């Protein structure tokens, strides 16, 4: 919104076109998809004209004058629409593309209210501190313009872990707009609400930016933080209105409603203009068909980025991990050596860099001195880096939503831009690269949360009881909170006062400060710290309890910021892993034995093939494999003797009827391989459908060898104690899950299975792919799934 877009010069367009031509081997840019070629798709997304609306009539004249003094004389339609909703007292969620002037959607009504009612307060929540800093800079400019045209001074302050102690008191009473993050609200603001009385008494707005970031564990925690916030607001007599903004996801209103537990109006038609964009899918060529090995996608990304950089276009490259970020940065710095004395043209960017360095890179990008930046998802959120010419994604970002979000980092409001996705050899990447329509035509994913996960909920009930006694009539979330409080009383954490019959209260009766023990980024506060003993001892990382054994077992390779460490000792009782820096060419993956027992079946009446419910998962890390970097070959293994981990969670599972299994014309072992291969492929697709990370769901196969019940079962369980809300939706999407799995396996190039479909050959048997397809065939005809709509190549 701030600056009028620059009209890109003619030669920039020529450069872009020519680079695209080279990538596309000289073919026309408008062409049908070609799943088997290196460039599987080139799509041209036409430019979109701006749709404007006048400033609403009831807007404060000083605010309008301030905007006009900055050259803004009208709004985009979505900004005006959002304003009307807020004025009408409705909670609103805005979901429009990157760089469409989303922040104005909330700044406009908030500033308007503060000008009309100076006692009004607003709390802005950002998922990361840097975003709050960016937003503060933008708001400061706006408030300066407002005072220039004679408006009152409006206090805007960030409040986070970095806020100096002596500034805090002033912020608590004076700031009209407090920019913070959920973690700070959870541990620093809510537990001290009496000191924030002025804010809570007058809290008119809660703004939640980057709403889509709050899914899974983080989102489940956020709902609870907002429940606590709303309790405190009721205590002080305020009823804040929520204004949320989100990247494009399938269910923005539903997510907002799950998080704030209020009804929302949705604004999703953007009035912002955008320039023409080319979207290209690149699948590195196959180098070994037998083993299904393709050329390294890192090398391919280097080549692609090089084509654009060479033509002096500004490029952002998104890598999948910190390690690949560093590797690509090194490669591209080699290709585009800096001129001594001149600013660096190629920079890396990721979490772990010091804030000062990051600000410097962001500035360099805006000013155009930095020509290429290689980043983890750290730059995916709305940090201001200006608009670049080209976005190269080294690997599919994992979700449709985040792919669009990243692609949005390139492209101005006018002129041309390009986004290139280079597929890795993971099954998901292959699926997307070979089925461009899945990406271009499908709706993005659903963001899922489970705020009533008992582990998470109990932690927040403790925090809430500390903040304000619960009454014996009070409810909280979807569970019976009185029952929860009763159990907390058994442990002496709360005490019920006021007698049996009268309305009483539950008081916190522990000297601890419960928020300190709860991290919003994990389910349970129990965690392991990683201590590096290379020179002295220092803590370099921490990891949650659930993943500790598989990541930090003895001899495991653990990586932080591109450095490689080996675990020397795992102190299970002391929750500590002792590591030392090593120089080696492999990493490790744990071999985990998992057994799932069904505790409770939901949706029993539905067809019996797929079910979901509560399960008990016992897992044990029994060994590990050493995998060489680059080639991914297995170069060794080891056995481990570690304690068992148990977890109560939710799961989706597939029960393959024995009638199908027994009818398969294959040997018992081959049938087992088929089930295992099918499970491997299903997990990949489930990840795709659920918009989650690989570690968010666990896989366990009972391939029919267990006692008594021979029915093979494939369990896809929530990898968090108590479940995080994936199972029921996955069950709901089960037809899609099976048909997409079928497409993934059937369309894979390999002969007998590979890491891109049913798993690497050698780990699954020679017939795994064939058998898996046969089982799917039976299942799909049996459940008359909607496979017909899908085009199945071959």
């Amino acid at each position, binding site marked *: 919104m701030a600056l009028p877009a620059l009209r890109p010069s003619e030669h920039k367009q020529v450069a872009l076109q020519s680079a695209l031509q080279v990538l596309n081997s000289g073919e026309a840019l408008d062409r049908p998809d070609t799943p088997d070629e290196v460039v599987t798709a080139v799509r041209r997304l036409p430019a979109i004209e701006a749709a404007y609306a006048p400033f609403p009539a009831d807007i404060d004249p000083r605010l309008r004058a301030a905007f006009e003094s900055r050259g803004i004389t009208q709004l985009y339609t979505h900004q005006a629409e959002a304003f009307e909703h807020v004025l009408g007292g409705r909670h609103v969620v805005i979901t429009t593309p990157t760089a469409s002037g989303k922040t104005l959607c909330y700044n406009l009504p908030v500033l308007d209210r503060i000008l009309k009612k100076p006692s009004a307060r607003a709390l802005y929540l950002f998922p990361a501190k840097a975003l709050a800093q960016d937003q503060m800079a933008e708001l400061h400019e706006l408030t300066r313009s407002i005072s220039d045209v004679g408006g009152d001074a409006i206090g805007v302050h960030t409040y986070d872990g970095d806020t100096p102690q002596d500034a805090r008191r002033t912020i608590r009473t004076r700031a009209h707009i407090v920019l913070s993050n959920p973690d700070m609200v959870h541990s620093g603001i809510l*537990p*001290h*609400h*009496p*000191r924030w*009385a002025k804010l809570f008494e007058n809290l008119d707005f809660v703004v939640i930016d980057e709403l889509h970031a709050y899914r899974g564990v983080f989102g489940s925690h956020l709902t609870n933080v907002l429940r606590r916030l709303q309790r405190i607001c009721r205590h002080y007599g305020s009823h804040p209105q929520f204004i949320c903004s989100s990247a494009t996801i399938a269910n923005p209103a539903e997510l907002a409603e799950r998080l704030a537990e209020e009804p929302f109006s949705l604004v999703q038609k953007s009035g912002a203009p955008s320039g023409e964009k080319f979207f290209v899918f690149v699948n590195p060529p196959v180098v070994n068909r037998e083993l299904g090995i393709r050329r390294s996608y890192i090398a391919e990304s280097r080549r692609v980025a090089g084509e654009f950089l060479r033509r002096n276009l500004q490029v952002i490259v998104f890598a999948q991990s910190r390690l690949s970020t560093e590797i690509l940065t090194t490669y591209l710095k080699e290709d585009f050596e800096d001129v001594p004395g001149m600013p660096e043209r190629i920079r890396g960017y990721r979490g772990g860099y010091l804030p000062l360095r990051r600000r410097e890179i962001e500035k360099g990008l805006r000013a155009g001195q930095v020509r290429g930046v290689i980043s983890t998802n750290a730059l995916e959120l709305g940090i201001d880096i200006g608009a670049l010419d080209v976005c190269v994604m080294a690997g599919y970002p994992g979700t449709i939503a985040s792919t669009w979000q990243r692609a949005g980092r390139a492209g101005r409001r006018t002129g041309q831009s390009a986004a290139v996705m280079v597929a890795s050899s993971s099954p998901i990447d292959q699926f997307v690269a070979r089925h461009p329509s899945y990406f271009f035509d499908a709706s993005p994913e659903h963001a899922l949360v489970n705020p009533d996960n*008992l*582990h998470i909920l*109990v*932690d927040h009930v*403790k925090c809430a*009881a*500390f*903040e*304000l*006694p619960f009454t014996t009539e009070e409810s909280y979330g979807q*569970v019976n909170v*009185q*029952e*929860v*409080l*009763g*159990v*907390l*009383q*058994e*442990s*002496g*954490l709360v*005490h*019920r*006062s*006021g*007698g*049996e019959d009268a309305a*009483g*209260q539950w*008081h*916190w*009766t*522990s*000297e*601890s*400060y*419960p928020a*300190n*023990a709860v991290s919003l980024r994990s389910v*349970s*506060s*129990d965690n392991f710290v990683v201590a590096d003993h290379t020179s002295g001892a220092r803590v370099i990382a921490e990891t949650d309890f659930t993943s500790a054994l598989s990541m930090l077992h003895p001899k495991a390779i653990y990586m932080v910021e591109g450095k490689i460490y080996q675990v020397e000792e795992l102190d299970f009782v002391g929750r500590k892993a002792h590591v030392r820096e090593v120089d080696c060419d492999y990493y490790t993956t744990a071999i985990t034995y998992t057994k799932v027992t069904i*505790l409770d079946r939901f949706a029993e009446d539905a067809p019996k093939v797929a079910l979901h419910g509560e399960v008990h998962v016992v897992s044990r890390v029994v060994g590990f494999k050493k995998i060489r970097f680059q080639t991914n070959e297995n170069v060794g293994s080891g056995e481990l003797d570690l304690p068992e981990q148990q977890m*109560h969670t939710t799961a989706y599972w597939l029960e393959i009827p024995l009638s199908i299994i027994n009818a398969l014309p294959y040997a018992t072992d081959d049938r087992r391989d088929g089930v295992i291969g099918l499970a491997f492929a299903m997990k990949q697709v489930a990840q795709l459908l659920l918009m989650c990370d690989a570690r968010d769901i666990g896989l366990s196969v009972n391939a029919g060898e267990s006692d008594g019940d021979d029915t093979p079962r494939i369990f896809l369980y929530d990898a968090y104690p*108590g479940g995080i809300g994936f199972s029921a939706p996955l069950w709901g999407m089960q037809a899609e899950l099976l048909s997409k799995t079928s497409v993934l396996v059937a369309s894979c190039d390999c002969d007998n299975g590979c890491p891109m479909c049913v798993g690497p050959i050698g780990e699954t048997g020679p017939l795994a792919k064939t058998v898996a397809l046969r089982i799917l065939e039976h299942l799909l005809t049996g459940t008359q799934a909607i496979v017909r709509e899908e085009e199945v190549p071959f």
Partner: protein
Amino acid sequence: MATLDRLREIVKHHRPSAVPVVADDVRLEGDGFSRRHIESAGVAGGAEAPALQTITTAALELGGALVEHSDGAVIVVDREYRAGDLHGRMPIGEIVSTIADGEDAMQLMAKAWPSSKGIGGRLLFLDLETTGLFGGAGTQAFLVGCASIEGTSIRVRQFLMPGFEHERIVLAELQAWANSHGALCTYNGRTFDVPLIETRFMFHRVPCPLDGVPHLDMLHPARRMWRQRPLAAGTPDPDDSSCSLAVLEKQLAGLHRVGDVPGYEIPSRFFKFVRTGDARPLEAVMEHNRLDLLSLAAVLARAIVLITRGPSAAMTAQEAYGLARVYERGGAYENAEASLLRTIEFAKRVGAEPEVHGEALRRLAWIRRRDRRPHEAAQAWNELAILPRCAAALRREAREALAIHHEHRLKDLITAREHALDLLADGVSNRGRVQHRLDRLERKLARYSEARLPLN
């Protein structure tokens, strides 16, 4: 698994609190006659708050009375300590008379202290016992201990919250007391007690009566006067516990507590009372609080004696030095200088306190410099520079000051150069600055010798 069992499982595995919790079998005096204990059976079997009957019994057991209001009640325990009573070896009467005449000394110790006469009589000593140490909305003061001077006695009045729902009443009582007193005296109240009380009033959305009340937090003057020094170079700097009220009362008043309740046990004793209605574990907490209040008065009295009688009343180098710091902060530089001289005298006599000796010389030099007596300041620096076993940082500071003094005031470039060279040899951290001085001195000396000017 039933939800209730799962909940129990989850709650049981919550991260253990860092704070130790009082064991269930806290030994009680007496036969423990039948008392209702709460069955832990969740909501249904429900825990009842101590009924009126129970809290009346509790009040009697603690030697107090239950004061009922329309919307709650408070247990008030009143104790009078007469002039002849002893606190450790200090007679209460002596503490009272010292405080009553201690206006000037208090003014010296506190910022923004009212100058009116008779402030000692309107002083409110305040000490809280709380449900936790972390602050925040869930930390409450379950016991507000107040003390004030009445005639020749000290009256201690404690307000104990008989249950969480009675907090407003406790606060109202405190409000009444605060309004009838003119100033506040605490130990660490600036960072703990007063902010906590403020938060409680804010929680109930009532203006805090302690806002703007003059406040003398004895922690800071006490640290200046009595904090333990490291015995020898290399021993770690003592933490604040060396200046805790418990340490001071032993040292200054000779008080040795018997059967005192450890601080970490206090919250859980209160929680136990709330759960069971059994007030007996709280008796030790009440006594602990009363002794704290008396010790606070004793510490104040001792500080007043020192300040009023001046350096001659100091018994150790440390005390004399702390006294000097108090005078200096209060702007009484003459007294500060006298106290420093007394400190040095002690240090020389005992000969075993080079740290205090060195710091006293340093302060002395600064005070004299501030008073525009540079030559006397230089004398102090000189003594410091040659003080045996003196901390290196102090010695370097002295040498640098001497180098400056000789270069700019005395124009004795050769001595200035000697000091600068000594400084370099002493392993000074900021070599650049010293080297710069040395270079300039050399240039000046060269110029003097070229001009064949006499070298002072």
